[in-house]
């Protein structure tokens, strides 16, 4: 009994409830004519698509910048890379890497500016991140109309100017990462080996980074800024580095997402991309102040699992598509839980 209590306390109620819910969905699936193998395969694909975007949350949480609602900024860099690589007409895996190669420098520059801004607004990072994300998406919406891209696959068919809202990558680098070493088991199970391995490499890189000297300094800045300052760590520099890494991961993440999804979504597409990523890492057990790679993996799997399974299973049970509403309640409920919980723990500590 004691053990269960400790486990519950450690894992947190939301994670347990949603974990059990997901389990229940998997168990019910066969009874309502949903193929479990297809479902697992879908969850894996979505896991790979979202993994890096969720991973992008880690650096900023670790340096105390809070949840990066401003991830659309990184996504925009990724989108710029993606459309430019299509404009250059590079296909296959090389097209994907050209996209990343263009996106990363842009993300570094944007992230650097964003980092400088966040250093001036310590304490209010999250609200500001939210609006930096929103306003940059709106700004880029104008740019997508004005930028001089020419490729026939991307511009509006009739006007001849401005990019389309969704651009297919089918003829360029569709599934170029997914299909590396991908295999099928039976008719229904597909494993996107390349994408999962790429995600694993990214996780490993971030994991390794936090074991270097810079990484330790970054964690110190987040957990105890006064101590970090006393030991001669340049707080602002560490925070800026974390913001840059986060933005770069956002850029790489969206390109991986697109090659699997098959479409580039411009204009207001990136608007809400931050929320599933934030909800994902929180569901994995991260708080506003602490996040690990394990949180990313568990959280992405659980959250994407719920998103994949609810439409198919719940629809078949009650003949109603409630998935969108459930998604809204679950993801925002999680963020809300995290925002209201940590403060409690903090004030309790102060009292003690």
């Amino acid at each position, binding site marked *: 009994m004691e053990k269960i209590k400790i486990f519950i306390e450690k894992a947190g109620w939301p994670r347990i409830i949603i974990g059990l819910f997901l389990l229940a969905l998997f168990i019910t699936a066969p009874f309502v004519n949903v193929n479990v193998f297809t479902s697992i395969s879908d969850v894996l694909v979505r896991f790979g698509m979202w993994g890096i975007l969720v991973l992008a949350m880690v650096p900023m949480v670790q340096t105390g910048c809070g949840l990066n609602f401003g991830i659309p900024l990184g996504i925009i860099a990724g989108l710029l890379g993606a459309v430019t690589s299509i404009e250059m007409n590079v296909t296959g895996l090389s097209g994907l890497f050209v996209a990343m190669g263009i996106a990363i420098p842009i993300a570094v520059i944007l992230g650097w500016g964003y980092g400088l801004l966040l250093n001036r607004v310590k304490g209010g990072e999250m609200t500001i991140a939210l609006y930096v994300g929103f306003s940059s998406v709106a700004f880029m919406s104008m740019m997508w109309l004005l930028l001089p891209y020419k490729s026939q696959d991307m511009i509006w068919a009739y006007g001849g100017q401005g990019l389309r809202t969704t651009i297919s990558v089918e003829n360029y680098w569709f599934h170029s990462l997914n299909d590396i070493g991908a295999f099928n088991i039976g008719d229904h199970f597909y494993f996107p080996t390349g994408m999962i391995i790429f995600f694993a490499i990214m996780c490993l890189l971030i994991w390794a980074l936090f074991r270097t000297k810079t990484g330790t300094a970054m964690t110190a800045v987040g957990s105890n800024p006064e101590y970090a300052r006393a030991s001669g760590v340049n707080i602002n520099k560490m925070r800026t580095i974390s913001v840059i890494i986060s933005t770069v991961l956002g850029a790489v993440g969206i390109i991986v997402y697109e090659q699997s999804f098959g479409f580039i979504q411009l204009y207001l597409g990136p608007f809400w991309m931050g929320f599933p990523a934030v909800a994902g890492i929180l569901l994995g057990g991260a708080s506003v102040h602490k996040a690990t790679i394990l949180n990313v993996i568990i959280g992405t799997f659980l959250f994407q699992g719920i998103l994949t399974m609810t439409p198919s299973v719940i629809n078949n049970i009650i003949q109603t598509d*409630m998935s969108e509403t459930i998604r809204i309640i679950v993801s925002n409920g999680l963020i809300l839980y995290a*925002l209201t919980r940590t403060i409690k723990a903090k004030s309790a500590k102060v009292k003690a």
Partner: protein
Amino acid sequence: MNNKNIKKFFINNAVPIMFIVLSILAIPLAGLSGEYLIQEMMTRLARYLFLVLSLLIPIIAGMGLNFGIVLGAMAGQIGLIFVTDWSVVGLSGMTLAIIISMPIAIILGWIAGVALNHAKGREMVTSYILGFFINGVYQLVVLYGMGRIIPISSNTMLLPRGYGIRNAVDLENIRGCLDKLIPLKIGNVNIPLATFLLVGVLCVFIIWFRKTKLGQDMRAVGQDMEVAANAGIPVERTRVLSIVISTVLACIGQIIFLQNIGTMNTYNSHEQIGMFSIAALLVGGASVAKASIPNAFIGIILFHIMFVVSPRAGKTLVGDAQIGEYFRVFISYGIIALALVLHAWRIYKEKERARMMFREANSSVSSESEKG
């Protein structure tokens, strides 16, 4: 006024001044008639004033911009759905809608207040997410509950599948019932006098409220929670009350807003309300910590001139109205971002200064003790 004062005036009012300049540049480009613009501004003032004013009280209590006014808006919409279903017409319909939605607004406001008390120091982002969360619950009730668990008698309001409210609800019954109550026409411009009178009552209420015991308590809490608590003010309760009042006012505001528009987008009408009201208030020169009734008036006029004019101006400039469309979205978000950055920067600088002073004081104490 000497040089320094002028400089200070410009810095403090940078946002409104920027908007005035933008409007002066954009109005000729749009080529709209003056009369049309004045009529638009009258309509939009009547539409938005109540909502924008509902933001003021939480600012006094130091809780920042209450993105949670969408909660009140949702409550108001539930009231309107029932009134339309029962086909109660005119002013009595509107009053009934307010009466029905008031308790819902109070409950939602109370929930919001309690949640924000758990998130001190990040009220704004929390109230923002809270809006989304309650929006999910609202969808659950309106899209899946109504017509199934909650009885709705008229089939025309329900989706073809037999439950859930349609995307658009026609508010024919109460359209313009308040705006046209006291008809007044100056030149060719219709003035919704009754709505303005109601707004006037709200302004008087806000001015009076600031002077009451509760209003003073809120100001004290807004300045420093710890000092207020030591002075015997129930901090948490005061904060909850400020959010409840704001939510209830927003609920009435949304009903006024929708009686002016005349149709309700069941699942969208409330979503943008928070952002537009807040952007308007900030454009009027308010900040996260300070906002007044004139800010609301000026803000709505400036922000909405931008709104009316920018698609047209965009079309003349680059031949594409879509650009202007995106431009105003960019402006609304950008202006909120800018205001938040300025506010956070100021707080951060004050903190830094306090820390340096604390350090200096400490070092002088320690050097003295070394001497001793």
